[in-house]
């Protein structure tokens, strides 16, 4: 059943369809409505939404809920997620399946999302929907991937994604039964010698006896960190996703992500219809970055242009994928409204078109 819904409402609804039963958050534009919708919809679904007194406490509460085996999420905009970074690092080490919503201001949180703003070797799967229809699928996919890999997954949205209303269907997607969570705490193994420890440290419970006290049943800090790093490597091999159009015979390939990519894609379709030799590549997972797909898409290009609403972040990953095969230029930039939260002048198909045309002429591509 399709309904006209604001993005925040549709995403909250999709999360609940996916089995999310805990959310904690702190108001911050343009994420606030997501909190409002969770607060309204979770209790009737048998879940809990806590209005946390700070972002730091919100992620802590989600951590506790995750430890009990529940599907749980938190979110904010980039600034609020900055406050949660220590916990994000450690939740990744504790191998808990947190889903994080970033309703970003512009696209300047690409580095924060993909490199991680926290300490240590950790990565989150980052999904960047182009519109609400894709967001509703990716939100459900997020909970599935988080459980499959026991790793956080971040939904990278923005002001438009959160506040545009579109007709969407939030029917639950069947990913099969979620994995069993024998590691989750419920108290029941207390006193048996087999009680559980959910910890980022890899140290485990002190189960073995012996005259020297024996050892812990965990792998130890070093082995644990290495195991998590190895898991992230396996995620890299398995979960990259990308959309490409017309790259087989494109002289200029434009790369973009998230909602702004919809504007770029529209322009590419327009130019293509006029016979211009342009192609389009859109990473859907910002991490793992679809390096191979982007490299293949740009293999025949004379120039690669990256459109993003920031000072140049995804362009680094595009350059790494292209690896010198063609020059990579940025055609985006910082652009926002007077509030700093929303949509700036750069998100305009005429403006984007003129920038792409400039790249086409500079590349001396015959019309």
């Amino acid at each position, binding site marked *: 059943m399709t309904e006209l819904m604001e993005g925040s409402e549709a995403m909250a609804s999709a999360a609940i369809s996916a089995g999310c039963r805990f959310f904690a958050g702190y108001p911050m534009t343009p994420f606030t409505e997501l909190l409002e919708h969770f607060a309204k919809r979770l209790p009737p679904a048998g879940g809990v939404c806590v209005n946390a*007194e700070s972002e730091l406490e919100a992620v802590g509460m*989600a951590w506790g809920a995750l430890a009990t085996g529940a599907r749980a999420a938190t979110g904010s905009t980039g600034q609020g997620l900055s406050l949660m970074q220590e916990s994000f690092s450690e939740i990744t080490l504790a191998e808990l399946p947190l889903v994080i919503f970033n309703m970003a201001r512009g696209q300047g949180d690409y580095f924060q999302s993909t490199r991680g703003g926290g300490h240590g070797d950790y990565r989150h799967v980052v999904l960047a929907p182009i519109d609400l229809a894709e967001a509703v699928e990716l939100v459900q996919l997020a909970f599935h991937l988080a459980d499959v890999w026991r790793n956080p997954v971040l939904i990278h949205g923005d002001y438009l994604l959160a506040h545009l209303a579109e007709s969407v269907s939030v029917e639950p997607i069947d990913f099969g039964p979620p994995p069993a969570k024998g590691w989750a705490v419920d108290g029941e193994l*207390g006193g048996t010698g087999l009680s559980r*420890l*959910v910890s980022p440290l890899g140290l485990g419970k002190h189960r073995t006896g012996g005259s020297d*006290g024996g050892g812990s049943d965990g792998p130890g800090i070093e082995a644990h960190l290495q195991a998590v790093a190895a898991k992230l490597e396996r995620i890299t091999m398995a979960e990259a996703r990308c959309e490409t159009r017309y790259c087989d015979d494109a002289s200029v390939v434009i790369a973009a992500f998230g909602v702004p990519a919809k504007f770029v894609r529209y322009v590419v379709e327009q130019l293509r219809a006029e016979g211009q030799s342009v192609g389009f590549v859109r990473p859907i997972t910002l991490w793992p970055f679809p390096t191979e797909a982007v490299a293949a898409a740009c293999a025949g290009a004379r120039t690669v242009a990256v459109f993003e609403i920031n000072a140049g972040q995804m362009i680094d990953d595009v350059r790494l994928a292209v690896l010198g095969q063609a020059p990579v230029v940025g055609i985006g930039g910082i652009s926002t409204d007077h509030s700093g939260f929303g949509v700036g002048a750069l998100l305009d198909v005429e403006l984007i078109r003129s920038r792409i045309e400039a790249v086409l002429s500079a590349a001396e591509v015959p019309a």
Partner: protein
Amino acid sequence: MTEPVGGRLSDARLVAPDKPDLLLTTEHNLCPGCGEPLAIRILLEAIAELGQVTNTVGVAGIGCYTAFSASLDVDLVQALHGRAPSVATGVKRMLPDRLVFTLQGDGDMVNEGLQEVLHTAARGERVTCILLNNGVFGETGGHMTAATVLGQRTKNTLEGRNSEYHGFPIRVADLIAQLDGAVYVARGSVHAAGAVARTKKMILRAFESQLAGAGFSLVEILTMCPTGWFIPTVEGPEYLDGTLGQVHTMGELKGRAER
């Protein structure tokens, strides 16, 4: 193990076992004379006495006592420094029938996590926070916390805490007792056998108030840290009573119960 003096164990009954049943190992690398293990004993005994052994989830903060995350035989979530109260909130909201406690030091709760415990108490979350207060950051080597008392010498207040430069200590149990969501707040200590026994009763009362669904409870337990206090181990109890105990005063601050 030594031989009994005066008779045979077969002619005697066990009055107090060396370790609580819920402690997986007595090995820990805490200092001689540390008060924290004494608090751990009564915590575990209280859980068992209330019949909550298979109904308890603990949340540990970061400090010397983190050593016990590996040896408490109850389901446990290891949290970050200061963050146990919010983690405990998430646990209790998902598992409302469990007995949920946090185990934190003064550096953890009164410094890094002051906001967390105040909010958790104000919300009346049905969890029990256990504060091990020795007036120092023990694990980093004995540094000033927000609970360190005036005049107390620590690694980074070698001349003694000075209000002019370092400000005043926070009596966190007193702060929390003022919040409507907190229903049982008490401060005990482990500097003498009698104090240990009284503090155990505080823990029992706190847990009972949680199980009755009444609201948030806090038991602050003053513990000896002769290493952090630069004193010989035997002087620990007297220092605790005479220094920390004069500022962080002992007793039930809120919610006296019959027991």
